[in-house]
């Protein structure tokens, strides 16, 4: 790939950038979940790797969180955009060369940022822990080039309308740049106190709400109609989804600070917006489910559809939790417990990871014009990911309920710690399963690139999944 960095744009084969993004994302997924499982081991076995500051939980947790969000999730999004945006415009990517440079700079910046976090250089603001110059780098060298490429590809499309997926992509790249710039104001101008707290969570919430959630949903809008051949159920519900995301998702940041001394009216805003988030969520889920009419057999037979629909189904519990855990009555029970950790992983390791998995599977096969090396390994990846995630979610949810009870009913802290221990071990087991499944995935994709059966012109990889 790196040889294309200095090639002429015309000489770069179409799809190269997307393939580069795709493989980078899988590598970050392996690294990120490896770190996750390492952290889980630290919480399950307190004596696991002690005595070295760099491997302390506080350092490793930040590295894990940023590796998965900005490595796996965001690079998989980059791959989806480089591949789906031009396809939906019946055109080519505006600039393959920019795409390749973008992925290259992304990997470099992220590696640098993670190394700094690892050695302990952090701004200490959760989810934007990177030091300020890395944040600036991300905005200028990572987010903006991606936005330019997506926007220019949409503008130079050769179709009449713009399809739903591309609305979300184009809005997502725009919003994430804004989120980075505004969300890091406290670091650039040394804002402190409640302003800092609020802006920090405005950033953290909107990385999820205006970047990860809408872009992940956009993937489903493409893969389901494309692979099943059914038209999208409703253009109109797509509109409702899009606009309600933009309006309702942008300001509930205060729901992360329900126990902080913020103005109460601000918390009320956050609370109701939490419930309003159900509007786009239900719009999205119902639109995709109704599109599946008559094609439910593909849920069983087809790997990409199975990944997508699993992700979409996980959006239901995710948004139910999200909607209600931010009302005052429920937040005081679950705040600061493992319940929230389970929720965060339902969003990222459940919902969005499955959707990105679908995009990366579909995109890499289509662009490399090679059929998946082994469908068995693909199925194994799916099931290990799903089972591992389910163990994770269940154990952390139970642990969270125990912690919540402990917090409220004055149970001695040590008794809560002891009661949680088995769930911590279960989480570690589930997480390790996820990690192993990703190693299998990386191998499978690598072998697909090298030895996968070539897909004949005019056919799609999934059509020949069961042919020899």
């Amino acid at each position, binding site marked *: 790939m790196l040889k294309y960095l200095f090639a002429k744009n015309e000489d770069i084969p179409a799809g190269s950038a997307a393939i580069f993004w795709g493989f980078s994302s899988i590598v970050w997924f392996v690294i990120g979940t490896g770190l996750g499982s390492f952290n889980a081991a630290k919480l399950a076995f307190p004596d696991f790797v002690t005595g070295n500051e760099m491997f302390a939980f506080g350092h490793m947790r930040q590295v894990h969180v940023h590796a998965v969000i900005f490595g796996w999730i965001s690079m998989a999004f980059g791959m989806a955009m480089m591949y789906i945006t031009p396809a939906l*415009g019946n055109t080519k990517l505006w600039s393959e060369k920019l795409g390749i440079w973008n992925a290259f700079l992304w990997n470099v910046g992220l590696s640098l940022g993670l190394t700094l976090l690892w050695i302990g250089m952090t701004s200490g603001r959760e989810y934007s822990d990177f030091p300020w110059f890395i944040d600036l780098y991300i905005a200028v060298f990572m987010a903006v080039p991606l936005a330019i490429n997506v926007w220019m590809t949409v503008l130079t499309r050769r179709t009449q309308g713009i399809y739903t997926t591309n609305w979300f992509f184009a809005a997502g790249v725009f919003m994430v740049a804004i989120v980075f710039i505004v969300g890091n104001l406290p670091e650039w101008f040394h804002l402190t106190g409640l302003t800092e707290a609020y802006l920090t969570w405005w950033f953290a919430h909107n990385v999820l709400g205006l970047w990860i959630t809408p872009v992940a949903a956009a993937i489903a809008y493409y893969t389901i109609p494309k692979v099943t*051949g059914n038209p999208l159920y409703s253009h109109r519900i797509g509109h409702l989804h899009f606009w309600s995301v933009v309006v309702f998702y942008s300001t509930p940041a205060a729901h992360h600070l329900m126990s902080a001394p913020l*103005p109460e009216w601000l918390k009320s805003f956050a609370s*109701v917006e939490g*419930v309003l988030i159900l509007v786009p969520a239900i719009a999205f889920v119902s639109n995709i489910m109704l599109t599946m009419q008559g094609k439910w057999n593909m849920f069983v037979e087809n790997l990409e559809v199975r990944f997508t629909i699993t992700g979409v189904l996980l959006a239901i519990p995710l948004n139910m939790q999200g909607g209600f855990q931010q009302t005052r009555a429920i937040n005081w029970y679950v705040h600061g417990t493992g319940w929230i950790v389970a929720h965060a992983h339902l969003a990222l390791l459940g919902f969005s990871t499955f959707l990105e998995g679908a995009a990366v599977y579909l995109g890499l096969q289509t662009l490399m014009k090679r059929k998946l090396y082994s469908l068995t390994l693909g199925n194994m990846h799916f099931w290990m990911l799903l089972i591992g995630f389910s163990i994770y979610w269940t154990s952390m949810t139970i642990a969270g309920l125990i912690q919540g009870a402990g917090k409220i009913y004055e149970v001695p*802290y*040590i008794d809560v710690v002891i009661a949680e221990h088995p769930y911590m071990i279960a989480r570690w087991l589930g997480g390790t399963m996820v990690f192993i499944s990703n190693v299998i995935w990386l191998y499978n994709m690598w072998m697909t690139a090298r030895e996968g059966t070539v897909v004949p012109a005019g056919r799609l990889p999934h059509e020949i999944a069961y042919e020899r």
Partner: protein
Amino acid sequence: MSEKHDVTGVPTTGHVWDDSLADFANQPPKWWMLGLAASAIWVVVYWLYYPSVPVPSSNTFFKGIGGWTAIKEMDADKSEVDAVRGKYEAKLKNMTPAAILADSELTEYVKRSGKVLFGDNCAPCHGTNGVGAKDKDGLVAPILNDDDWLYGGQIDNIHTTISGGRQAVMVAHKDSLSAQQIDDVANYVKAMSDEGKDKADTDSAVAAGKKVFMESDCTSCHGADAKGMQAMGSANLTDKIWRFDGSLEGIKRTITYGVNSGDPKARIAIMPNFKEAGKLSDSEIKKLAVYVYKFGGGQPDLPVAPVQATVAQPAASAVTATK
């Protein structure tokens, strides 16, 4: 293209993307719109009830018809708790720990809240219910549910320990004693614990160690009888209870580098000062003193007869007794 997919009779929007992708012009289903309306109603109700819309011009906000504030809710919760606990807490305030012990109803109350305080503040070092917690250097902190006390097991001793903290010092002997002497004295100390002091004193195998013990500085802190002195928290060396690693190697390490002696390899024994750190109130410290006393190892205030008169309480029975 549109007819091909048209199972429902609804037309597509007419667009086709990526060769085969289209979308229907369906309206949202009715149940869907009802859900939307229901959320809108919910929002209005929530906003009317709770503090919500800001009024920037007068720098205030709509306070909500429910009259709810976070402070009011907290006060209500607090008064609920106070209704039950208030009368005990008021009584506790002016009582000494010894007086609390004499009042059985109050003791019962204190034991319950002591359990929470202990679990939150003390258990990480002393173990749940004071059974002790071990790491590779021996106990992290002394076991509290036995009758072996470094600083004394009377209620006032315990109270002083918790309110003021403790940091015993045993000097390092790596310069004042030779390796051979340390070896000898360690063997003697181990023999005192294994066989009892009387037998060790007459055991010729450890005579050299006894000589070191009596002639160097050991007796000034541990006493000539090696039973320790409560005033400085020096350990009783004649029993089978080991605060630090009680193997020969462990004993040698304690003697060579000392305890809290400032030597980098010294053993560390710090009982934090909870009062100075502002972590516990006076009442809470009193409660903890009574709670720890009631683990079963507390000793009566009267001067007690020689040690052999006190019957050791097995740890397990002490645990069940507090439940």
